[in-house]
């Protein structure tokens, strides 16, 4: 970046002002996370002190009234629901973005894009309501009880698809036209061009889209609460009801006191931990990509 502070000898006062105000804003934004973490740790502290970290993974069950605080089944529920959703949403999201940018006539592209934009703003309660009233009875007819991991995956898929589609499409829109002209001049077929030129160039956008999608899926509360069944068990197949960590917090926070409440905050920290792990993996991949590309 030629605008990096390390090699600019700026004559302009406005630049100094700009740099410092931007630094300040960035600091404020970054310190938000610090505040959230401090809050979570403060609320979760009693649980750490009185229950201990290992109990959350070794207790017999999740039964706070009998002082049992096992979190593992809900951890698995969260992971499986998010994994399933992203495995559906990532490819279809990228395909949808390609559709909007390249394959569709302008009128259809605009209309489809508007549809996806709409989908992105529909509240989780509406997804949950539709899922509960339409999707779950359908699944129940196929295989009772109905509220299940499958319902959760499908609803999450609908919720994160717009994020992936729109972000990828925006980055496709920013690919310089010259890349495509050059590729055409080289005689590449349409599909080869997509595979070898367009998608690699848009890689950063695809990463961002998938990342935001995963983040949204991990943190989704209301819709999951309505369609997943909320039974605390490790799912053994798609039609098992599950409870995610977020649904657990939502269901029980209203009535929890003392250690029970602190444990719910521990599960919040656990979720953040999972996001941190995911972010670190993504950063690691990103770095390898960038350095590989510059070789």
């Amino acid at each position: 970046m030629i605008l990096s502070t390390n090699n600019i000898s700026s004559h302009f006062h406005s630049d100094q002002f700009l740099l410092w105000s931007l630094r300040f804003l960035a600091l404020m934004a970054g310190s938000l996370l610090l505040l959230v973490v401090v809050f979570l740790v403060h609320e979760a502290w009693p649980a750490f002190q009185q229950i201990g970290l290992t109990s959350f993974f070794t207790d017999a069950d999740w039964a706070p009234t009998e002082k049992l605080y096992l979190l593992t089944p809900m951890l698995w529920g969260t992971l499986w629901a998010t994994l399933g959703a992203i495995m559906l949403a990532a490819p279809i999201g990228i395909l949808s973005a390609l559709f909007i940018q390249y394959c569709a006539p302008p009128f259809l592209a605009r209309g489809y894009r508007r549809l996806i934009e709409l989908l992105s703003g529909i509240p989780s309660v509406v997804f949950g309501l539709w899922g509960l009233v339409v999707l779950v009875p359908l699944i129940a007819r196929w295989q009772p009880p109905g509220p299940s991991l499958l319902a959760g995956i499908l609803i999450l898929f609908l919720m994160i698809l717009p994020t992936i589609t729109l972000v990828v499409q925006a980055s496709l829109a920013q690919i310089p036209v010259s890349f495509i002209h050059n590729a055409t001049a080289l005689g590449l077929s349409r599909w080869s061009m997509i595979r070898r030129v367009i998608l690699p160039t848009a890689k950063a956008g695809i990463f961002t889209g998938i990342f935001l999608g995963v983040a949204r899926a991990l943190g989704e509360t209301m819709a999951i609460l309505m369609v997943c069944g909320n039974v605390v068990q490790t799912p053994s197949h798609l039609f098992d009801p599950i409870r995610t960590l977020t649904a657990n917090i939502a269901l029980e926070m209203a009535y929890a006191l003392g250690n029970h409440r602190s444990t719910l905050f521990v599960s919040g920290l656990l979720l953040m931990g999972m996001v941190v792990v995911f972010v670190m993996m993504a950063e690691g991949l990103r770095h390898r990509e960038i350095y590989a590309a510059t070789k």
Partner: protein
Amino acid sequence: MLPQSKSVQDHCGAAIIWSSTGLISFGVLWLLGDLLWHGWSQLSWSFLFSSPENAGREGGIGPILISTSLILGVCMIVAWPMGLGTAIFLAEFTQDDHRFGRLIRGSLDVLAGVPSIVFGLFGNALFCQALGLGFSILSGGLTLACMVLPILIRTTEESFRAITSDQRLSAAALGFSTSTTVGSILLPAAIPGLLVGSILGIGRAMAETAALIFTSGYVDRMPESLLDSGRALSIHIYDLAMNVAGGNPNAYATAVVLVGLLIIINLAASWIAEKWTTLNQLPT
């Protein structure tokens, strides 16, 4: 744009793309159709302007629309300057391995994954209790701003990074200050990303329920100030559908209004983006 499809691979690819988008469109239209089917009979001008009665089963959603707009307004006014500033900082003033930049970016990424209900509880503790704002539209808007910030920053930063360096090099060669380069050359070129960021951000803000229950509250009266508690559309839908017997028809109608509001906002955002871009383009 792309060359004509020729090979089998091309045709297969096209078939896959068309069928998946067809499937998605079908699903979305099914969802929207369901909403319209159940909610259409309740819609009217008085529904949009009158107050809720009988726990929301009768009457309208006037005050709720106002509260929602105010919450959204506070959220955007607070989030955009901070988001844009941080994104420009990360994109233009830090290299990839710059420590401060990586720290900020990493912490924003983690923030993106915090569940909405945790934000609600955090917002309650920070804005409602510690800062003394109580259950209010202001608390709700500020909490939503925290939630929306990572999305805004991520998408905006990506769009700045996607601008090729020849634009910046030309600007430097012409002796522009950084401020001018960023404001007059880079910002207009990053409009697609900014637009996506705002649409996703607004969408996320309007879709939020769990965070708002604990911050902007449940009161469905017309708010008289930003410090009043005000019910958002999504909370109204949740209450009517899940808590109040016989609230279903109005819940669906409110959902239809929300979708309508979204369409208007998205159209407005696209229009603004187009105007900004064309205003900045040099005549060819």
